[in-house]
């Protein structure tokens, strides 16, 4: 299973990679901001899910979601927003823009697993 992790924090990327790996993703790529994520998405094979941080330099999560949803070829690619409780008000905006799910930091692997299941992505 393929996943794309977009987060400007290298620690968060590392943690997400570990959790996704434990869940059963064997091909995880990452990017440090929305623009990079978008480039990576377009360049590589389409992932099963994209986890995208909200607050990032260059292009934030919201802009990323809008940009992806503007491309019909990714209509079926679930986008999961990674946020914190201080950004609650923005979740709605993101969901309206086309994000499929969200998780709030800090989360455990179980939370991710549950949310992925909601998106129809079962772990092995």
């Amino acid at each position, binding site marked *: 299973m393929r996943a794309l992790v977009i987060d*400007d*924090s*290298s*620690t*968060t990327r*590392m*943690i997400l990679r*570990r959790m996704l790996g434990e869940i059963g993703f064997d091909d995880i790529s990452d*990017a*440090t901001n929305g*623009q*990079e994520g978008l*480039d990576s998405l377009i360049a590589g094979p389409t992932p099963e899910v994209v986890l995208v941080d909200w*607050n*990032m*330099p*260059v292009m934030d999560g919201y802009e990323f979601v809008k940009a992806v949803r503007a491309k019909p070829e990714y209509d079926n690619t679930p986008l999961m927003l990674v946020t*914190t409780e*201080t950004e609650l008000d923005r979740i709605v905006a993101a969901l309206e823009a086309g994000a499929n799910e969200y998780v709030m*930091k*800090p989360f*455990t*692997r179980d939370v991710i697993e549950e949310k992925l299941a909601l998106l129809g992505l079962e772990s092995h």
Partner: protein
Amino acid sequence: MAQDLGESQGQLPEEVNEFLVESHENLDRLDRDLVALEADPMDKERLSSIFRTIHTIKGTCGFLGFQKLESVTHVGENLLSKLRDGELILNPAITDALLAMVDAVREMLARIESTASDGEVTYPELIARLTEAAAGSLSGTVAVAPVLAAAPADEPTKVEPVVDNPSQSEALAPPVVATSDLASKVAAADAAKEPIEAKSVISDSSVRVDVGLLDRLMNLVGELVLARNQILQHTAGEANSALVATTQRLNLITSELQEGVMKTRMQPIGTIWSKFPRVVRDLSQSLSKHVRLELEGKETELDRTIIEAIKDPLTHLVRNSVDHGIEMPEIRSANSKPDEGILTLSAYHEGGYVNIEVIDDGAGIDPLKLKAKAIEKGLITVEQASKMSDREVQHLIFMPGFSTAEKVTNVSGRGVGMDVVKTNIERIGGSIEVNSELGKGSTFKIRIPLTLAIIPALIIKSAGERFAIPQVSLVELVRLEAEQAKVDIDAVDGAPVCRLRGHLLPLVKLSEVLKLESELVEDEGATNIVVLQADHRQFGLVVDHVVDTEEIVVKPLGKQIKSVNTFAGATIMGDGRVALILDVMGVAKAGHVVSESLDSRSGSVSESRGDYVADKEALLLLGLGHSARVAVPLASVDRLEEFETDSLEWAGSQPVVQYRNGIMPLLWLASALGVDAGDASDSKLQVVVHSSLGRSVGIVVGSILDITEEQVTLDPYGSRDAIRGSAVIQGKVTDVVDLTPLVEAVVGELVGVGVIE
């Protein structure tokens, strides 16, 4: 509870480590951003960046279970979000609070690094302060002054951590500083990020590499260079063209690889500069000074070992400039300077070197005050002081014991003196000099090699042994054939000297300095002189053979030989044997061509009591007439010249010669000293050129006898003006003449009658 969460999620050491690296990196940027923000409080982009940094730390803390850190960054994030959204406007009080938060975060990170936990310190005061600031009550404070005045002068923004659990307080008390390993990782990562920040679009194609790995690679490349050198040597006379071609390829690839690996170890100097905005801000605040820091050439790259080595000296220089260089605002405005002082750090490449300048537009160094201070401290005598040029005086600040005594612990002091700065820089093969103009400011210029590991060197032989001389010290190679050597080298016993294009070059025989049994090939008779630069002096090193130039890998010497300061290290030659690398400065000192600098003189001052005994001094021994001999300090001799008697002209009653597109007045030393000149039947005039008051005067002497090094005893009853003292030279008491008063008298007179302007 937070700990539980962390453990239940299997908080991994590598994730914590990543967090530490990432956070240190972010905090360094944050320091810069906050200081920059003070200048432009409305800078939206910076505010977002600062917010994001704290937000990220806070967000990640949750995963790792660092609850204390989370709560501090949480209130900080709140405050920052208000600033970002324009609900609050940054003022110095808020900046202070935020900087205090950054300090607290650093402290907790250090704790995490050493104990894997963020500890028990909860920082209630800081949290209160940040909350207050977020509520807008701190922002109402018009001036920061009262806050600062109440705080101890040296640490205005220090927040006392409060400890929950007193029993643990002792263990937690000393703030743990990040290990250098981590620090350099951080620096490396920072370096990698710099260009991205600047362009802020291009994707990050860099990776983090363990510096230990880079060091190992560098060592391997060093070995490869050696093997390459060996192969080159073996194939030197090879006829097999395929082998020769392959060797050439190997040669090229090795060079490229070496260059590539060296580049991986390069870091922009900005990695250490990033801390300075904060340093300057804190320091100038505590001193109530206004200082603007300008950084030029922060992308200039240096080997990371050197970056590490210059960090402390550079910090000291910066602190020193803010503390001693830049004046208080009122003094500045009284001298019609802008209130705000400017401190510029500038770095640029030049040859195989990097120059780093610390420039302030402050008060400059007052040579008179400096002299007075040095005399008061017993570092120099009044006599010495009177003979020092302004430039020499300025360099007094690098003398041991000069800058440490005053305000030791306070600001720039910290118990470290400029002498330590100088020593540290010289230890890595660099040099430092100061240039100061009273009232205008000072510039400290550091010059350091780009890398320490592999250097181009000249290989020479002396007494059958090979030695390597770093090419950075090499000025030129001179080979004098036997006949020529007889003319150009004045080698009586004592110190030999060579005439080189009118200059007198002191010579040092390497075999003598190293006490080797020279097998100098007398039959060939040629003399090989390697002209070297040591400090501000040049000298000629006489060697048996000049072999070749080669890239050598510098290897350290064992501690049993480290104290031999004529050697800087060793290297392995193409044949596998070891050759020693000469320390040019050390050789110069051992050969007495540079004095052991002023520091050694200081020791003898106290013993001398009145009749001052100087260290040995290089003297030019001159013959006047039949038997009279005098000596002049070699340092006062610009050049030695010979003029045909025919070229003598007269300007009024003043004898002159045409010299270097100008007219140079001549002065007969014998008559000036009232000595019988004897017959002046020679068709040539031997002239010692001395400059004073910006003019050159030629001093006509009978003959130039020798250069020698003697102890000069100053005559306290100095009967004649121009006689400085006497020295026992080759068994005879000889007057040592001070040329300056003689020449100044002539120049003064000539200016008076309009012979010269």
